[in-house]
């Protein structure tokens, strides 16, 4: 008679931070592709989360996102990161057109005591997959970005965080009277990430 060993998916703080950092990297790439910030030919297909994801091949953007995700993972491990916002602005006027808001709730007990949690990797992947699908489907309701745009990433951290030399303090780059759409969230039992997109009202919608 064959014996079965039940494997429990244990999640540590480091693992959860890595998952969330990786998620943000792929989400940023997906947003940049779907919103047309960079041309389609500059993206290559890869398999991730059971989906075909698109990753930029531009060296500058790649290195930017890589260094960003490594710093975010560091902050997530220390429990100092509250929110990450990807801002899309007009290149000409620097007006903020969209804010992709990723709110992060950290389990303080795990950060302080280093306890571990249990959650299936498949479940987390399924939740992330749902968010990625929603990002891909956002073109149905978000206004078209007809002008050249640039992006930036803001990190909302605790006040006592030491600012690395590659980061500076900034304003929140808010949108006046935005429209908001709440997307799905995912939870690793250590970090809970809520996604929300706020965008400037389209002139056609206002009319």
């Amino acid at each position: 008679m064959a014996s079965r060993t039940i494997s429990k998916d244990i999640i540590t703080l480091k693992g959860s931070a890595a998952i969330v950092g990786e998620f943000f990297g792929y989400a940023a790439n997906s947003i940049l592709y779907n919103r047309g910030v960079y041309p389609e030919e500059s993206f290559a297909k890869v398999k991730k989360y059971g989906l075909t994801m698109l990753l930029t091949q531009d060296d500058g953007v790649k290195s930017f996102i890589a260094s960003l995700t490594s710093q975010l993972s560091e902050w997530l491990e220390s429990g100092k990161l509250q929110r990450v916002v990807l801002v899309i602005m007009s290149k000409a006027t620097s007006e903020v057109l969209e804010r992709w808001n990723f709110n992060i709730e950290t389990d303080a007990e795990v950060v302080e005591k280093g306890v571990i949690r249990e959650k299936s990797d498949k479940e987390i992947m399924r939740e992330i997959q749902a968010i990625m699908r929603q990002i891909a489907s956002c073109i149905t309701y978000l206004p078209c970005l007809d002008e050249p745009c640039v992006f930036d990433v803001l990190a909302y951290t605790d006040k006592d965080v030491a600012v690395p030399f590659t980061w500076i303090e900034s304003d929140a780059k808010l949108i006046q009277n935005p429209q908001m759409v709440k997307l799905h969230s995912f939870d690793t039992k250590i970090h809970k990430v809520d996604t929300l997109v706020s965008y400037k009202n389209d002139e056609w919608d206002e009319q």
Partner: protein
Amino acid sequence: MMLRTPPQRKRRAESVAGDESPVSDRRLVPYGGGAAAVPIASAEPSDPMVCTYHCRQMVKSEFMVAFNTLERQVGDYQARLETLHEQLCRSDDERKKCQDHLTFLEQELAATKGREHALQERLLKEVTDSHERHRAQLKRISELEVELNRESDSRKTAELSAASAKETIKDLEGKLQRLTESSEREKNMLKKELSFSQDSLNLSASKLAANLERMRLRAENSEKEAELLKQELKGLREQLNECLHQKSEVEHKLSRFSASSNQNTPTEDQKLVKLLQEEIRNYESEVREARRLRSSHVNNELLKEKLLEEKGRRERAEMELSKLMEFQERAQKLELELLSWKSLLREIPDVSCYDDIPKKFAALQKEVIENMIKVGEISASLKELEVKLEDASLSRQHAENESALAKEKAESAALGAKRLELMLASVTEERDRLKKDSFVLDKQKAGHTNETLLKDLAEKENSIREMENSLHQLRELLSHQHEELELMNEKLNVEARKVKSLEREGDRLRSEIALLESKLGHGDYCASSTKVLRMVNTLAVDNEAKHTIEALQAELKRTQEKLQAVEELKGQSDVGKIIDANIPEKLVQLKSQIAILEKREERYKAVFAEKISVFRRACCSLFGYKIVMDDQQRPNGIPVTRFTLQSIYAQSDDEKLEFEYESGTTNIVVNEYISQPEISHQVEIFIKKMNSIQAFTANLTMESFNKRTLS
């Protein structure tokens, strides 16, 4: 049977009593006889026959008249009797009708009475049930409240004890933290020592590894040589065999030749012999060489075995090193534990020896666990109480619903009672009317049988009075129930108000949540606890910083020139100066701009210096060279960047390499260190022949590392 014609006696009496005849004076003469002598008042006894006939005729006529009148009277009486009889019949009919009506009313009354009684009983039952339930609920609620108070008191005491235990735990934790800090400090010191010892061990291990590699390389080389020698040996052996074979043939030939032709030219034979001898000597030398090679091969195999032994020793040494490290760590841990236990012994009260500490901790843990269990039990009991309260509230709601139903039933019963009252009133009215009719009938008829009716009416009146009394009691009950219902309604209103307030609070909280979500989506944040950071592209920053620094420097120069010009202008014009009122303000503005620009420049310089220092440190740790960069200018004016490299394994400060970088090409600069024979040899091989500065620096690093470790 009533006689139509009255008897004579009556007639006589009547005639005597009543009627007056105009004819006679009421004296009667008996006809035909003188049996009954009636005093005759007439004086004349002589005309008796005429008188008597006349009297008889008179009497007859009078009798006839009286008979007629009597007949008429009889007729009248008969008619009256008939009318009375009709009236009696009618009254009988009416009485029967009234009796029927009365019986019907009685039946209805009995039915309503029965229904009322049943309703009353049901109402009483329901009221008693609701009362009992209410009382039971009140009892339960009071019991629950008492339990709640008890549990809250016990919870408070448990919380106080838990708080005190937590405080003691916090104190102990503080002490432990201090202990851990002190132990960490010692640990760091020991770590440093360990690192030093590890470095030394690593150095020795690397030495061993280098030796092993050298030995391995030598062994490989010797193996290769041995293989080559083997091959040579094989070839030589074959040659030897051939030579021996040839030798044997030659000897055989020689023997044949010597036998046959002894007289042949001895000089040729001698030459042949000499040649053969030379060849033999050569072969022998080759054989000797082969033997030497064989011996060297054997030596190589011995070396190989020695190499394997040394490898095994090295592996054993490494394992023992790792074990040593583990033992050291264990010893450190044990020392730390000992220190911690010692300090605990000193600091923890009521502890005299090491054995007491775990007991003390176990006791504290037990206390904490007990307190936590108590707290858990109290919380569980609180939850049970909450559940019971919820059940009580649900039952109260149920009772309220039942009371509402009872209220409705009471209202319906009141309506029914009202209907019954109305019916009773109508019945009493009819009764009164019937009484009046019966009284009239009694007056009209003599010896009528209305006593039974009166009796029945009296009984009915009694029953009606009883019903009125029961109605009165029902009314009292209903009023009491109304009062209770009003109380419950008041309670319901209070609960409804509480529910409304809770709903309002819930709506307020929902609106707050929506507001917070909108704020979150908008991007608002609390500036006292949060800061917003933005990542900057370092390369872009460097370029931008350089550009800004250059621009700021240019601006600075310009402003300084302007300042100088202005100051010169000020110095030149002493008398009759054209004082421009705006110049000092402009000066102030320019100075402030200069200060701002200088601050910016300093900041950019600081940032750049930080980055560069980090980069230099990283390069030093990765490649093993401290790099110093200098920008110089050649005599011909061409700018050149000079890099000075000093290895971290350098044994003196003079051991420096210098390179010049110019437009993509790097050239080594000759100095005293490079002019040393060893270094110059390496420069020739790696830089000049192989054109690889990286290989040169790597080789130099390895050699200096080996020198350092061997020394």
